[in-house]
Protein backbone atom coordinates (compact mmCIF):
# COMPACT_ATOMS: atom_id res chain seq x y z
CA UNK A 1 0.00 0.00 0.00
CA UNK A 2 1.12 3.59 -0.55
CA UNK A 3 2.97 5.04 2.40
CA UNK A 4 4.72 8.34 3.00
CA UNK A 5 8.33 7.96 4.06
CA UNK A 6 10.24 10.89 5.59
CA UNK A 7 11.89 11.44 2.21
CA UNK A 8 8.56 11.51 0.41
CA UNK A 9 7.23 14.10 2.85
CA UNK A 10 10.40 16.13 2.40
CA UNK A 11 10.17 15.93 -1.40
CA UNK A 12 6.49 16.90 -1.30
CA UNK A 13 7.15 19.91 0.90
CA UNK A 14 10.06 21.01 -1.28
CA UNK A 15 7.94 20.64 -4.42
CA UNK A 16 5.02 22.57 -2.91
CA UNK A 17 7.22 25.35 -1.54
CA UNK A 18 9.18 25.59 -4.80
CA UNK A 19 6.01 25.74 -6.91
CA UNK A 20 4.42 28.32 -4.59
CA UNK A 21 7.55 30.49 -4.61
CA UNK A 22 7.67 30.31 -8.39
CA UNK A 23 3.96 31.18 -8.63
CA UNK A 24 4.45 34.23 -6.42
CA UNK A 25 7.69 35.58 -7.89
CA UNK A 26 7.90 34.46 -11.54
CA UNK A 27 7.19 36.60 -14.57
CA UNK A 28 4.76 35.70 -17.35
CA UNK A 29 6.99 33.10 -19.03
CA UNK A 30 7.92 31.49 -15.73
CA UNK A 31 4.23 31.24 -14.78
CA UNK A 32 3.38 29.61 -18.12
CA UNK A 33 6.14 27.04 -17.58
CA UNK A 34 4.93 26.44 -14.01
CA UNK A 35 1.34 25.89 -15.16
CA UNK A 36 2.57 23.47 -17.83
CA UNK A 37 4.45 21.54 -15.11
CA UNK A 38 1.42 21.49 -12.79
CA UNK A 39 -0.92 20.18 -15.51
CA UNK A 40 1.55 17.51 -16.60
CA UNK A 41 2.08 16.59 -12.93
CA UNK A 42 -1.66 16.08 -12.55
CA UNK A 43 -1.78 13.83 -15.62
CA UNK A 44 1.18 11.70 -14.54
CA UNK A 45 -0.25 11.45 -11.01
CA UNK A 46 -3.37 9.92 -12.58
CA UNK A 47 -1.26 7.57 -14.70
CA UNK A 48 0.94 6.51 -11.77
CA UNK A 49 -2.16 5.48 -9.80
CA UNK A 50 -3.04 2.80 -12.33
CA UNK A 51 0.41 1.93 -13.74
CA UNK A 52 2.43 2.06 -10.53
CA UNK A 53 -0.11 0.59 -8.13
CA UNK A 54 -2.23 -1.60 -10.41
CA UNK A 55 0.18 -2.66 -13.14
CA UNK A 56 -2.17 -1.13 -15.73
CA UNK A 57 0.22 0.67 -18.09
CA UNK A 58 -2.11 2.94 -20.01
CA UNK A 59 -1.50 4.57 -23.36
CA UNK A 60 -4.82 6.40 -23.31
CA UNK A 61 -4.34 8.83 -20.44
CA UNK A 62 -3.48 11.60 -22.90
CA UNK A 63 -6.77 10.87 -24.65
CA UNK A 64 -8.59 10.94 -21.28
CA UNK A 65 -7.08 14.34 -20.60
CA UNK A 66 -8.34 15.33 -24.05
CA UNK A 67 -11.82 14.03 -23.22
CA UNK A 68 -11.80 16.23 -20.11
CA UNK A 69 -10.69 19.24 -22.15
CA UNK A 70 -13.31 18.70 -24.88
CA UNK A 71 -16.06 17.97 -22.36
CA UNK A 72 -15.27 21.25 -20.57
CA UNK A 73 -15.13 23.16 -23.87
CA UNK A 74 -18.46 21.78 -25.09
CA UNK A 75 -20.24 22.19 -21.77
CA UNK A 76 -19.18 25.84 -21.55
CA UNK A 77 -19.23 27.04 -25.18
CA UNK A 78 -22.03 24.90 -26.67
CA UNK A 79 -24.21 23.89 -23.69
CA UNK A 80 -23.76 27.27 -22.01
CA UNK A 81 -23.10 25.82 -18.57
CA UNK A 82 -21.33 27.87 -15.92
CA UNK A 83 -17.60 27.00 -15.84
CA UNK A 84 -17.65 25.46 -12.31
CA UNK A 85 -20.55 23.18 -13.33
CA UNK A 86 -18.78 22.36 -16.60
CA UNK A 87 -15.62 21.53 -14.64
CA UNK A 88 -17.54 19.02 -12.51
CA UNK A 89 -19.30 17.68 -15.61
CA UNK A 90 -16.05 17.19 -17.53
CA UNK A 91 -14.51 15.32 -14.58
CA UNK A 92 -17.59 13.06 -14.40
CA UNK A 93 -17.63 12.43 -18.18
CA UNK A 94 -13.93 11.53 -18.22
CA UNK A 95 -14.31 9.31 -15.16
CA UNK A 96 -17.18 7.44 -16.83
CA UNK A 97 -15.20 7.01 -20.08
CA UNK A 98 -12.18 5.77 -18.13
CA UNK A 99 -14.35 3.36 -16.11
CA UNK A 100 -15.67 1.80 -19.33
CA UNK A 101 -12.12 1.48 -20.74
CA UNK A 102 -10.93 -0.03 -17.44
CA UNK A 103 -13.84 -2.50 -17.35
CA UNK A 104 -13.30 -3.63 -20.94
CA UNK A 105 -9.52 -3.78 -20.62
CA UNK A 106 -9.53 -5.49 -17.21
CA UNK A 107 -9.09 -8.98 -18.64
CA UNK A 108 -6.06 -7.97 -20.70
CA UNK A 109 -2.57 -7.90 -19.22
CA UNK A 110 0.85 -6.54 -20.10
CA UNK A 111 1.35 -5.65 -23.74
CA UNK A 112 -2.29 -6.51 -24.56
CA UNK A 113 -3.58 -3.99 -22.01
CA UNK A 114 -1.23 -1.35 -23.41
CA UNK A 115 -2.47 -2.07 -26.93
CA UNK A 116 -6.13 -1.99 -25.83
CA UNK A 117 -5.68 1.41 -24.19
CA UNK A 118 -3.76 2.67 -27.22
CA UNK A 119 -6.66 1.58 -29.44
CA UNK A 120 -9.20 3.39 -27.23
CA UNK A 121 -7.06 6.53 -27.29
CA UNK A 122 -6.64 6.46 -31.05
CA UNK A 123 -10.36 5.87 -31.54
CA UNK A 124 -11.11 8.99 -29.49
CA UNK A 125 -8.45 10.97 -31.36
CA UNK A 126 -9.73 9.91 -34.80
CA UNK A 127 -13.35 10.61 -33.89
CA UNK A 128 -12.65 14.09 -32.55
CA UNK A 129 -10.38 14.83 -35.54
CA UNK A 130 -13.16 13.94 -38.00
CA UNK A 131 -16.23 15.29 -36.16
CA UNK A 132 -17.34 18.83 -37.14
CA UNK A 133 -19.17 19.07 -33.80
CA UNK A 134 -15.79 19.05 -32.05
CA UNK A 135 -14.32 21.52 -34.53
CA UNK A 136 -12.44 18.81 -36.47
CA UNK A 137 -8.73 19.46 -36.92
CA UNK A 138 -9.34 23.20 -36.31
CA UNK A 139 -10.15 22.48 -32.68
CA UNK A 140 -12.27 24.74 -30.48
CA UNK A 141 -11.56 28.21 -29.12
CA UNK A 142 -13.14 30.78 -26.84
CA UNK A 143 -13.01 28.53 -23.78
CA UNK A 144 -13.66 30.52 -20.61
CA UNK A 145 -11.79 30.21 -17.36
CA UNK A 146 -13.62 29.77 -14.08
CA UNK A 147 -14.68 33.02 -12.48
CA UNK A 148 -13.44 33.23 -8.88
CA UNK A 149 -13.91 36.98 -8.53
CA UNK A 150 -16.23 36.30 -5.58
CA UNK A 151 -13.20 35.33 -3.53
CA UNK A 152 -11.08 38.06 -5.09
CA UNK A 153 -9.22 35.87 -7.61
CA UNK A 154 -9.00 36.78 -11.26
CA UNK A 155 -8.11 33.55 -13.02
CA UNK A 156 -7.46 35.42 -16.26
CA UNK A 157 -4.30 36.53 -14.49
CA UNK A 158 -1.51 33.97 -15.07
CA UNK A 159 -0.33 34.11 -11.45
CA UNK A 160 -3.79 33.42 -10.01
CA UNK A 161 -4.36 30.65 -12.55
CA UNK A 162 -1.04 29.00 -11.65
CA UNK A 163 -1.93 29.16 -7.94
CA UNK A 164 -5.39 27.73 -8.73
CA UNK A 165 -3.76 24.82 -10.62
CA UNK A 166 -1.32 24.28 -7.72
CA UNK A 167 -4.20 24.09 -5.24
CA UNK A 168 -6.07 21.62 -7.44
CA UNK A 169 -2.92 19.51 -7.92
CA UNK A 170 -2.65 19.37 -4.11
CA UNK A 171 -6.29 18.26 -3.91
CA UNK A 172 -5.74 15.64 -6.64
CA UNK A 173 -2.67 14.32 -4.81
CA UNK A 174 -4.66 14.08 -1.56
CA UNK A 175 -7.45 12.24 -3.37
CA UNK A 176 -4.96 9.82 -4.96
CA UNK A 177 -3.40 9.05 -1.56
CA UNK A 178 -6.84 8.51 0.02
CA UNK A 179 -7.87 6.17 -2.80
CA UNK A 180 -4.65 4.15 -2.61
CA UNK A 181 -4.93 3.84 1.18
CA UNK A 182 -8.58 2.79 1.06
CA UNK A 183 -9.86 -0.78 0.80
CA UNK A 184 -10.07 -0.25 -2.95
CA UNK A 185 -6.40 0.75 -3.11
CA UNK A 186 -5.36 -2.25 -1.01
CA UNK A 187 -7.35 -4.53 -3.28
CA UNK A 188 -5.62 -2.96 -6.28
CA UNK A 189 -2.23 -3.69 -4.71
CA UNK A 190 -3.32 -7.29 -4.14
CA UNK A 191 -4.47 -7.56 -7.75
CA UNK A 192 -1.11 -6.26 -8.97
CA UNK A 193 0.76 -8.83 -6.86
CA UNK A 194 -1.43 -11.84 -7.62
CA UNK A 195 -4.65 -11.43 -9.56
CA UNK A 196 -5.52 -15.12 -9.43
CA UNK A 197 -5.19 -15.21 -5.64
CA UNK A 198 -7.41 -12.16 -5.26
CA UNK A 199 -10.03 -13.87 -7.40
CA UNK A 200 -9.79 -16.97 -5.20
CA UNK A 201 -10.32 -14.69 -2.20
CA UNK A 202 -13.65 -13.71 -3.72
CA UNK A 203 -12.67 -10.33 -5.14
CA UNK A 204 -14.30 -8.98 -8.29
CA UNK A 205 -11.02 -8.17 -9.98
CA UNK A 206 -12.41 -6.43 -13.08
CA UNK A 207 -14.48 -4.13 -10.87
CA UNK A 208 -11.48 -3.07 -8.77
CA UNK A 209 -9.50 -2.29 -11.93
CA UNK A 210 -12.40 -0.43 -13.53
CA UNK A 211 -13.11 1.61 -10.39
CA UNK A 212 -9.50 2.73 -9.95
CA UNK A 213 -9.15 3.39 -13.68
CA UNK A 214 -12.31 5.51 -13.49
CA UNK A 215 -11.02 7.49 -10.51
CA UNK A 216 -7.68 7.96 -12.24
CA UNK A 217 -9.60 9.15 -15.31
CA UNK A 218 -11.33 11.76 -13.19
CA UNK A 219 -7.95 13.24 -12.24
CA UNK A 220 -6.87 13.14 -15.91
CA UNK A 221 -10.18 14.82 -16.79
CA UNK A 222 -9.48 17.58 -14.25
CA UNK A 223 -6.06 18.08 -15.85
CA UNK A 224 -7.75 18.29 -19.26
CA UNK A 225 -10.37 20.80 -18.15
CA UNK A 226 -7.60 22.97 -16.68
CA UNK A 227 -5.47 22.59 -19.82
CA UNK A 228 -8.44 23.82 -21.89
CA UNK A 229 -8.77 26.85 -19.60
CA UNK A 230 -5.04 27.46 -19.64
CA UNK A 231 -4.71 27.90 -23.41
CA UNK A 232 -8.42 28.74 -23.95
CA UNK A 233 -8.17 26.68 -27.11
CA UNK A 234 -8.05 22.94 -27.72
CA UNK A 235 -7.23 20.77 -30.72
CA UNK A 236 -7.31 17.00 -31.39
CA UNK A 237 -3.54 16.93 -30.80
CA UNK A 238 -4.34 16.86 -27.08
CA UNK A 239 -5.74 13.31 -27.55
CA UNK A 240 -2.84 12.00 -29.64
CA UNK A 241 -1.07 8.89 -28.39
CA UNK A 242 2.19 10.87 -28.16
CA UNK A 243 0.72 12.79 -25.19
CA UNK A 244 0.09 9.45 -23.43
CA UNK A 245 3.56 8.25 -24.42
CA UNK A 246 5.13 11.41 -23.04
CA UNK A 247 3.20 10.98 -19.77
CA UNK A 248 4.48 7.40 -19.50
CA UNK A 249 8.06 8.59 -20.11
CA UNK A 250 7.62 11.16 -17.33
CA UNK A 251 6.27 8.53 -14.91
CA UNK A 252 9.24 6.22 -15.59
CA UNK A 253 11.68 9.13 -15.47
CA UNK A 254 10.30 10.29 -12.11
CA UNK A 255 9.74 6.92 -10.41
CA UNK A 256 6.86 4.52 -11.04
CA UNK A 257 4.60 3.77 -8.07
CA UNK A 258 5.79 6.61 -5.85
CA UNK A 259 3.28 9.42 -6.72
CA UNK A 260 5.91 12.00 -5.71
CA UNK A 261 8.41 10.75 -8.30
CA UNK A 262 6.26 11.36 -11.38
CA UNK A 263 5.61 14.93 -10.19
CA UNK A 264 9.38 15.46 -9.91
CA UNK A 265 9.63 13.87 -13.36
CA UNK A 266 7.07 16.36 -14.72
CA UNK A 267 9.11 19.29 -13.40
CA UNK A 268 12.37 17.85 -14.74
CA UNK A 269 10.82 17.05 -18.12
CA UNK A 270 9.26 20.47 -18.73
CA UNK A 271 12.28 22.42 -17.47
CA UNK A 272 14.64 20.25 -19.52
CA UNK A 273 12.44 20.68 -22.59
CA UNK A 274 12.47 24.47 -22.31
CA UNK A 275 16.13 24.81 -21.37
CA UNK A 276 17.49 22.38 -23.96
CA UNK A 277 15.22 23.67 -26.72
CA UNK A 278 16.89 27.08 -26.21
CA UNK A 279 20.13 25.43 -27.27
CA UNK A 280 18.98 22.86 -29.84
CA UNK A 281 15.71 21.85 -31.44
CA UNK A 282 16.65 18.19 -30.80
CA UNK A 283 15.65 18.29 -27.14
CA UNK A 284 13.98 14.87 -27.51
CA UNK A 285 17.44 13.36 -27.95
CA UNK A 286 18.58 14.73 -24.59
CA UNK A 287 15.43 13.48 -22.85
CA UNK A 288 15.93 10.11 -24.57
CA UNK A 289 19.51 9.81 -23.33
CA UNK A 290 18.41 10.77 -19.81
CA UNK A 291 15.62 8.17 -19.90
CA UNK A 292 18.03 5.47 -21.07
CA UNK A 293 20.46 6.44 -18.28
CA UNK A 294 17.67 6.22 -15.69
CA UNK A 295 16.48 2.84 -16.97
CA UNK A 296 20.03 1.46 -17.19
CA UNK A 297 20.84 2.65 -13.65
CA UNK A 298 18.18 0.18 -12.41
CA UNK A 299 16.93 2.79 -9.99
CA UNK A 300 13.19 3.44 -9.96
CA UNK A 301 13.48 6.75 -11.80
CA UNK A 302 14.95 9.98 -10.45
CA UNK A 303 13.08 9.67 -7.18
CA UNK A 304 14.05 6.01 -6.86
CA UNK A 305 17.68 7.06 -7.24
CA UNK A 306 17.22 9.75 -4.56
CA UNK A 307 15.49 7.24 -2.26
CA UNK A 308 18.27 4.69 -2.70
CA UNK A 309 20.93 7.34 -1.97
CA UNK A 310 19.39 9.36 0.83
CA UNK A 311 16.17 7.63 1.97
CA UNK A 312 17.73 5.27 4.51
CA UNK A 313 20.10 8.01 5.76
CA UNK A 314 17.21 10.42 6.36
CA UNK A 315 15.13 7.76 8.15
CA UNK A 316 18.17 6.94 10.37
CA UNK A 317 18.75 10.59 11.19
CA UNK A 318 15.10 11.10 12.11
CA UNK A 319 15.08 8.00 14.30
CA UNK A 320 18.32 9.20 16.02
CA UNK A 321 16.69 12.58 16.65
CA UNK A 322 13.60 10.88 18.14
CA UNK A 323 15.76 8.69 20.38
CA UNK A 324 17.81 11.71 21.49
CA UNK A 325 14.70 13.71 22.29
CA UNK A 326 13.22 10.74 24.24
CA UNK A 327 16.48 10.40 26.18
CA UNK A 328 16.47 14.13 27.02
CA UNK A 329 12.85 13.86 28.19
CA UNK A 330 13.70 10.90 30.45
CA UNK A 331 16.73 12.80 31.87
CA UNK A 332 14.57 15.89 32.52
CA UNK A 333 11.88 13.76 34.21
CA UNK A 334 14.55 12.07 36.36
Amino acid at each position, binding site marked *: *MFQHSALRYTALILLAVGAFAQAVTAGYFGLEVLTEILLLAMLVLALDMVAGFGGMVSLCHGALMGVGAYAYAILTTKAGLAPPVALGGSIAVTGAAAWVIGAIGARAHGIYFIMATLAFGQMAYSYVFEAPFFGGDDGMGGIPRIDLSLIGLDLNDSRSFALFCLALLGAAYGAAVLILRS*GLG*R*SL*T*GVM*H*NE*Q*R*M*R*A*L*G*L*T*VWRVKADVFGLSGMIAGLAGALAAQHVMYISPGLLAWTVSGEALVVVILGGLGTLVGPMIGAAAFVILKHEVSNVTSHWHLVVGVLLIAVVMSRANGLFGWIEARWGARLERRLSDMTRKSDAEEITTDA
Partner: protein
Amino acid sequence: MLDLTSVASGYGETQVLHGLSLRAEQGRVLAVLGRNGAGKSTTLKTIMGLLPTREGTITLDGQPMGKTSYDIARMGIAYVPETRDIFPSLSVRENLEITAKRFGDSDSPWTMARVLDLFPRLGERMNNGGTQLSGGEQQMLAIARALLMNPRLLILDEPTEGLAPIIVKLIHDKLMELKHEGLSMILVEQNFGFATSLADDVVVVSKGQVVWTGDADAIRADENAQHRWLGV
Protein backbone atom coordinates in the same frame (compact mmCIF):
# COMPACT_ATOMS: atom_id res chain seq x y z
CA MET B 1 -20.59 -32.20 0.64
CA LEU B 2 -17.91 -32.02 -2.10
CA ASP B 3 -17.88 -34.71 -4.77
CA LEU B 4 -15.37 -35.23 -7.55
CA THR B 5 -16.53 -37.79 -10.10
CA SER B 6 -14.17 -39.14 -12.78
CA VAL B 7 -12.32 -35.82 -13.00
CA ALA B 8 -9.64 -35.31 -15.64
CA SER B 9 -7.41 -32.24 -15.47
CA GLY B 10 -3.86 -31.07 -16.05
CA TYR B 11 -1.51 -28.37 -17.28
CA GLY B 12 -1.54 -27.51 -20.96
CA GLU B 13 -1.11 -30.66 -22.97
CA THR B 14 -0.08 -32.68 -19.92
CA GLN B 15 -2.94 -34.55 -18.27
CA VAL B 16 -2.32 -35.17 -14.58
CA LEU B 17 -5.67 -36.38 -13.23
CA HIS B 18 -7.13 -39.41 -15.00
CA GLY B 19 -10.70 -39.97 -13.84
CA LEU B 20 -10.16 -39.09 -10.16
CA SER B 21 -13.14 -39.51 -7.84
CA LEU B 22 -13.39 -38.61 -4.16
CA ARG B 23 -15.86 -37.32 -1.60
CA ALA B 24 -15.31 -34.87 1.27
CA GLU B 25 -17.97 -35.13 3.96
CA GLN B 26 -19.52 -32.26 5.91
CA GLY B 27 -17.80 -31.60 9.24
CA ARG B 28 -14.93 -34.01 8.57
CA VAL B 29 -11.29 -33.66 7.58
CA LEU B 30 -10.19 -35.43 4.41
CA ALA B 31 -6.46 -35.92 3.85
CA VAL B 32 -5.25 -36.40 0.28
CA LEU B 33 -1.95 -38.29 0.39
CA GLY B 34 0.45 -39.47 -2.29
CA ARG B 35 3.99 -39.28 -3.56
CA ASN B 36 5.43 -36.24 -5.33
CA GLY B 37 3.81 -35.73 -8.71
CA ALA B 38 0.85 -38.00 -7.89
CA GLY B 39 -1.67 -35.21 -8.58
CA LYS B 40 -2.56 -34.01 -5.06
CA SER B 41 -2.05 -30.27 -5.61
CA THR B 42 -3.52 -30.59 -9.10
CA THR B 43 -6.66 -31.99 -7.47
CA LEU B 44 -6.95 -28.94 -5.21
CA LYS B 45 -6.28 -26.51 -8.05
CA THR B 46 -8.95 -28.22 -10.14
CA ILE B 47 -11.45 -27.97 -7.28
CA MET B 48 -10.63 -24.26 -6.99
CA GLY B 49 -11.11 -23.63 -10.70
CA LEU B 50 -7.45 -22.70 -11.14
CA LEU B 51 -7.16 -25.58 -13.64
CA PRO B 52 -9.98 -26.49 -16.01
CA THR B 53 -11.98 -29.69 -15.46
CA ARG B 54 -11.59 -31.46 -18.81
CA GLU B 55 -13.83 -34.40 -17.96
CA GLY B 56 -16.02 -35.45 -15.05
CA THR B 57 -17.95 -33.34 -12.57
CA ILE B 58 -17.31 -31.50 -9.33
CA THR B 59 -20.33 -30.69 -7.16
CA LEU B 60 -20.83 -29.01 -3.79
CA ASP B 61 -23.94 -30.29 -2.01
CA GLY B 62 -25.17 -31.56 -5.36
CA GLN B 63 -24.74 -28.20 -7.09
CA PRO B 64 -22.20 -27.91 -9.92
CA MET B 65 -19.13 -25.92 -8.91
CA GLY B 66 -18.65 -22.43 -10.34
CA LYS B 67 -16.45 -22.04 -13.38
CA THR B 68 -13.99 -19.53 -11.90
CA SER B 69 -12.10 -19.32 -8.64
CA TYR B 70 -14.18 -16.22 -7.86
CA ASP B 71 -17.47 -18.16 -8.16
CA ILE B 72 -16.02 -21.01 -6.10
CA ALA B 73 -14.85 -18.64 -3.36
CA ARG B 74 -18.36 -17.17 -3.29
CA MET B 75 -19.79 -20.69 -2.84
CA GLY B 76 -17.93 -20.84 0.49
CA ILE B 77 -14.69 -22.62 -0.34
CA ALA B 78 -11.48 -21.07 0.96
CA TYR B 79 -8.09 -22.20 -0.31
CA VAL B 80 -4.69 -21.87 1.36
CA PRO B 81 -2.14 -22.54 -1.40
CA GLU B 82 1.25 -24.13 -0.87
CA THR B 83 2.87 -20.80 -1.82
CA ARG B 84 0.72 -18.98 0.80
CA ASP B 85 0.52 -15.98 -1.53
CA ILE B 86 0.81 -13.28 1.11
CA PHE B 87 0.70 -9.82 -0.49
CA PRO B 88 4.19 -8.54 0.28
CA SER B 89 3.60 -4.79 0.24
CA LEU B 90 0.51 -5.01 2.44
CA SER B 91 0.74 -5.25 6.21
CA VAL B 92 -0.68 -8.19 8.18
CA ARG B 93 -3.76 -6.10 9.01
CA GLU B 94 -4.29 -5.15 5.37
CA ASN B 95 -3.85 -8.75 4.21
CA LEU B 96 -6.58 -9.76 6.66
CA GLU B 97 -8.88 -6.85 5.88
CA ILE B 98 -8.98 -7.81 2.20
CA THR B 99 -11.20 -10.76 3.08
CA ALA B 100 -12.64 -9.56 6.41
CA LYS B 101 -14.41 -6.59 4.82
CA ARG B 102 -15.71 -8.65 1.91
CA PHE B 103 -17.10 -11.69 3.71
CA GLY B 104 -17.48 -10.74 7.34
CA ASP B 105 -20.04 -8.89 9.41
CA SER B 106 -20.72 -8.84 13.14
CA ASP B 107 -22.82 -12.05 12.87
CA SER B 108 -20.16 -14.01 10.98
CA PRO B 109 -18.52 -16.84 12.91
CA TRP B 110 -15.05 -15.64 11.95
CA THR B 111 -14.18 -12.05 12.73
CA MET B 112 -10.86 -10.23 12.91
CA ALA B 113 -10.89 -10.51 16.72
CA ARG B 114 -11.51 -14.24 16.58
CA VAL B 115 -8.72 -15.05 14.12
CA LEU B 116 -6.34 -12.98 16.24
CA ASP B 117 -7.51 -14.96 19.23
CA LEU B 118 -6.65 -18.15 17.31
CA PHE B 119 -3.28 -16.75 16.15
CA PRO B 120 -2.17 -14.22 18.81
CA ARG B 121 1.23 -13.99 17.09
CA LEU B 122 -0.44 -12.18 14.19
CA GLY B 123 -1.87 -9.62 16.60
CA GLU B 124 1.68 -8.68 17.59
CA ARG B 125 2.66 -8.29 13.93
CA MET B 126 -0.33 -6.37 12.60
CA ASN B 127 1.69 -3.50 11.14
CA ASN B 128 4.49 -5.64 9.73
CA GLY B 129 4.71 -6.11 5.99
CA GLY B 130 4.06 -9.50 4.43
CA THR B 131 7.76 -9.94 3.61
CA GLN B 132 8.80 -9.32 7.22
CA LEU B 133 7.08 -12.48 8.46
CA SER B 134 8.68 -15.85 9.09
CA GLY B 135 7.42 -18.90 7.16
CA GLY B 136 5.27 -19.97 10.11
CA GLU B 137 3.76 -16.52 10.51
CA GLN B 138 3.02 -16.40 6.80
CA GLN B 139 1.22 -19.74 7.07
CA MET B 140 -0.78 -18.47 10.06
CA LEU B 141 -1.68 -15.36 8.08
CA ALA B 142 -2.72 -17.42 5.05
CA ILE B 143 -4.98 -19.61 7.21
CA ALA B 144 -6.37 -16.60 9.11
CA ARG B 145 -7.12 -14.81 5.83
CA ALA B 146 -8.94 -17.88 4.54
CA LEU B 147 -10.96 -18.21 7.76
CA LEU B 148 -12.12 -14.61 7.42
CA MET B 149 -13.92 -15.74 4.27
CA ASN B 150 -16.15 -17.66 6.72
CA PRO B 151 -15.85 -20.78 4.58
CA ARG B 152 -17.98 -23.93 4.59
CA LEU B 153 -14.96 -25.85 3.39
CA LEU B 154 -11.29 -25.00 4.01
CA ILE B 155 -8.74 -26.45 1.59
CA LEU B 156 -5.08 -26.50 2.61
CA ASP B 157 -2.17 -27.41 0.34
CA GLU B 158 0.95 -28.58 2.23
CA PRO B 159 0.45 -26.35 5.30
CA THR B 160 3.63 -27.65 6.99
CA GLU B 161 5.92 -27.27 3.97
CA GLY B 162 9.28 -25.78 5.04
CA LEU B 163 8.23 -25.07 8.64
CA ALA B 164 10.21 -25.78 11.81
CA PRO B 165 8.88 -28.71 13.93
CA ILE B 166 7.66 -26.40 16.71
CA ILE B 167 5.64 -24.37 14.19
CA VAL B 168 4.31 -27.57 12.59
CA LYS B 169 2.99 -28.55 16.01
CA LEU B 170 1.41 -25.14 16.50
CA ILE B 171 -0.29 -25.29 13.08
CA HIS B 172 -1.45 -28.84 13.88
CA ASP B 173 -3.00 -27.72 17.18
CA LYS B 174 -4.79 -24.80 15.52
CA LEU B 175 -6.18 -27.00 12.73
CA MET B 176 -7.28 -29.51 15.37
CA GLU B 177 -9.20 -26.68 17.09
CA LEU B 178 -10.90 -25.90 13.79
CA LYS B 179 -11.73 -29.57 13.31
CA HIS B 180 -13.33 -29.78 16.75
CA GLU B 181 -15.45 -26.78 15.86
CA GLY B 182 -16.83 -28.79 12.95
CA LEU B 183 -15.13 -27.00 10.06
CA SER B 184 -14.93 -29.22 6.97
CA MET B 185 -11.41 -29.44 5.57
CA ILE B 186 -9.46 -31.01 2.74
CA LEU B 187 -5.77 -31.31 3.43
CA VAL B 188 -2.95 -32.19 1.04
CA GLU B 189 0.13 -33.08 3.05
CA GLN B 190 3.44 -34.91 2.65
CA ASN B 191 3.87 -35.28 6.40
CA PHE B 192 2.13 -38.63 7.01
CA GLY B 193 1.97 -38.31 10.80
CA PHE B 194 0.61 -34.75 10.66
CA ALA B 195 -2.04 -35.65 8.08
CA THR B 196 -3.30 -38.86 9.65
CA SER B 197 -3.44 -37.43 13.18
CA LEU B 198 -5.66 -34.62 11.90
CA ALA B 199 -7.78 -36.41 9.30
CA ASP B 200 -10.94 -38.44 9.68
CA ASP B 201 -10.83 -39.79 6.14
CA VAL B 202 -7.92 -40.45 3.81
CA VAL B 203 -7.57 -40.94 0.08
CA VAL B 204 -4.29 -41.90 -1.52
CA VAL B 205 -3.63 -40.60 -5.02
CA SER B 206 -1.22 -42.16 -7.49
CA LYS B 207 -0.78 -41.27 -11.16
CA GLY B 208 -3.85 -39.05 -11.08
CA GLN B 209 -6.24 -41.63 -9.65
CA VAL B 210 -7.44 -42.56 -6.17
CA VAL B 211 -5.84 -45.90 -5.31
CA TRP B 212 -6.79 -46.21 -1.64
CA THR B 213 -9.75 -44.94 0.39
CA GLY B 214 -10.44 -45.42 4.06
CA ASP B 215 -10.25 -43.73 7.42
CA ALA B 216 -7.14 -42.43 9.15
CA ASP B 217 -6.91 -45.40 11.54
CA ALA B 218 -7.06 -47.80 8.60
CA ILE B 219 -4.17 -46.20 6.70
CA ARG B 220 -2.09 -46.06 9.89
CA ALA B 221 -2.69 -49.79 10.32
CA ASP B 222 -2.14 -50.69 6.65
CA GLU B 223 1.65 -50.86 6.37
CA ASN B 224 1.40 -52.45 2.97
CA ALA B 225 -0.54 -49.48 1.55
CA GLN B 226 1.84 -47.03 3.25
CA HIS B 227 4.83 -48.76 1.73
CA ARG B 228 3.30 -49.28 -1.68
CA TRP B 229 1.69 -45.87 -2.27
CA LEU B 230 3.49 -43.49 0.03
CA GLY B 231 6.97 -44.97 0.46
CA VAL B 232 6.65 -44.65 4.26
